[in-house]
């Protein structure tokens, strides 16, 4: 009497069907994460726009004493009229720093968003019991956890990198245009395409190393998310703090050194470019020192970064923690 029963459903339950390829399932799961956690794409897009608006209004002043980029206190060397090659390098350095600096809030804000996303990732589905719906579908716990981890530490960071890169182009264009129509034409903010490419590759490299470096932290957050009964935030924060406190009477700082300095340790890994030497510095006429990002790129030592034993220990620890999170999601039954 209705179309659903007309064509013999008996045959349908037994007809073998092809498995859906893992890649397709993963894609569906990843899309689901962006449906559920809209902050993952909304925050980056809002900040992307804010940064651009900022580029329209940021005060760039050139006067006798030099160049002022408010609110950035950087100051370059004086007389714009007679630029030496060093000074044009200063102009390029300034522009790259302006680009990089203006998109820093994007990365900071998204890191915070990702932190809370990972904490919620396996917790909310238990709280609202929707895990029982997800588990009624032929998707393994491993695939589910992997999709959330991928979103948190690969897809969103790379997406934000791409947005930042676009922002850099647009900021440079806007600022250059403003300078062109502004009162002071010979202005030492200079576009250099090769310098831009190098700066972006450097940024991408930093994002890449960061992704690997924070993997154990992300896995720890997911494990907390899978394990905590309530107040997942406290469960994530307390154990590292407590263990560090317990260490105090013994006069050791092993744990706090390892864990609490993990993120700052990242700078150490980045610093592997040119062992011990900080990013290349340009000195301006009035003695101000500016990091010159494009030449920092020249010093990048990818092999050095990747051969840091802490990175590999971190990856192994992260793998173990992820495995634990998968097992807990698979076997826990308190919903």
């Amino acid at each position: 009497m209705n179309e659903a029963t007309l064509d013999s459903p008996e045959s349908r339950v037994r007809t073998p069907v092809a498995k859906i390829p893992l890649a397709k399932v993963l894609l569906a799961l990843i899309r689901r994460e962006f449906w559920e956690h809209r902050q993952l794409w909304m925050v980056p897009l809002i900040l992307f726009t804010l940064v651009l608006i900022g580029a329209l209004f940021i005060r760039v002043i050139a006067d006798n004493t030099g160049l002022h980029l408010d609110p950035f206190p950087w100051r370059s060397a004086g007389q714009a009229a007679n630029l030496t090659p060093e000074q044009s390098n200063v102009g390029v350095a300034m522009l790259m720093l302006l680009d990089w600096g203006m998109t820093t809030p994007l990365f900071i804000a998204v890191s915070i968003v990702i932190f809370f996303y990972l904490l919620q990732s396996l917790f909310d589905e238990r709280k609202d019991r929707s895990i029982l719906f997800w588990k009624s579908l032929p998707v393994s716990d491993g695939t589910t956890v992997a999709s959330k981890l991928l979103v948190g530490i690969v897809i969103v960071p790379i997406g934000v990198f791409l947005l930042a890169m676009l922002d850099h182009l647009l900021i440079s264009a806007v600022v250059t245009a403003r300078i062109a129509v502004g009162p002071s034409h010979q202005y030492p903010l200079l576009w250099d395409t090769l310098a831009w490419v190098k700066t972006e590759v450097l940024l991408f490299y930093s994002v890449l190393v960061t992704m690997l470096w924070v993997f154990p932290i992300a896995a720890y957050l997911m494990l907390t998310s899978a394990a905590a009964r309530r107040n997942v935030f406290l469960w994530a924060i307390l154990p590292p703090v407590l263990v560090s406190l317990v260490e105090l009477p013994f006069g050791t700082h092993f744990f706090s050194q390892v864990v609490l300095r993990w993120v700052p340790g990242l700078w150490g890994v980045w610093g592997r470019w040119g062992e011990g030497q900080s990013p290349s510095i340009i000195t301006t006429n009035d003695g101000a020192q500016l990091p010159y990002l494009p030449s920092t790129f020249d010093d990048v030592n990818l092999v050095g970064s990747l051969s840091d034993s802490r990175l590999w220990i971190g990856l192994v620890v992260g793998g173990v923690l992820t495995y634990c999170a998968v097992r807990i999601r698979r076997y826990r039954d308190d919903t």
Partner: protein
Amino acid sequence: MTPDTEAVIDAKGLTKSYGAHRALNGVSFKVGAGRIVGLIGPNGAGKTTALKAVLGLTSFDGDLQVLGWDPRGQRDDLMSDVCFIADVAVLPRWMRVSQAVDFVASVHPRFERSRAEAFLKKTDIRMRSRVRELSKGMVTQLHLALILAINARLLVLDEPTLGLDLIYRRQFYDTLLNDYFTDERTIFLTTHQVEEIENLLTDVLFINHGNMVLDSSVEELAARFVQVTVAPANVAQARALKPFYEREIFGRTAMIFEGRPQAELAALGELRTPSIADLFVAKIQGGAA
């Protein structure tokens, strides 16, 4: 192989403890293909634990085969042929109806999108709505639409109509029977609203305190159990035949006998086959007395 001889669920000695509490105490049962089996028991009897074991959602001791798979180790394979509604409220509240259909379509190889959409068209549910905007009854309809469009061999339902009003409950079971059930599909469900599914079931399993107290097909029940409305004069004589349950209704005594020939009982009063609800009360209370 005919559907009747093949067990869709084959459980032997299922045991599960939560601390000191034994939720399942060596329970064994079989569910044949093409049956609609009700797992019936009071709250805390072990129904949900048994279902969770079947669905691979909990650990347990004992042997369990579901469609030939072990739900503990082969859950991912199992879930292509089994679908379940654990609770109507579990659809994620943030999800749009269209997203739910898209998602299931992209991860389930046996999902027929057109059937889900056809079913939804008959309801007031709009594709743009989010689950949190739907009434509880509509959420059930949506979940049913998703599940019925999956060509699964086994459907497991855990108190699927809990908290729904009568209209939606009736609709739910009607849809299940008319649009879904076939000889090759099997439905295994728990409920404590026994009256509503009496006419639907082909088999009943009564569970109490983690033990199976009755395992029978509905046809067998009529042969096995007789309820006699005993005239006051015959009460003593009737009690001598050892009813396992009796209760007073309007001054007459209703007794339920198991395994007594009808001829022997006919003299005592009016005979009828007890309803599943009556039997349930009798088994659970009578068993304790």
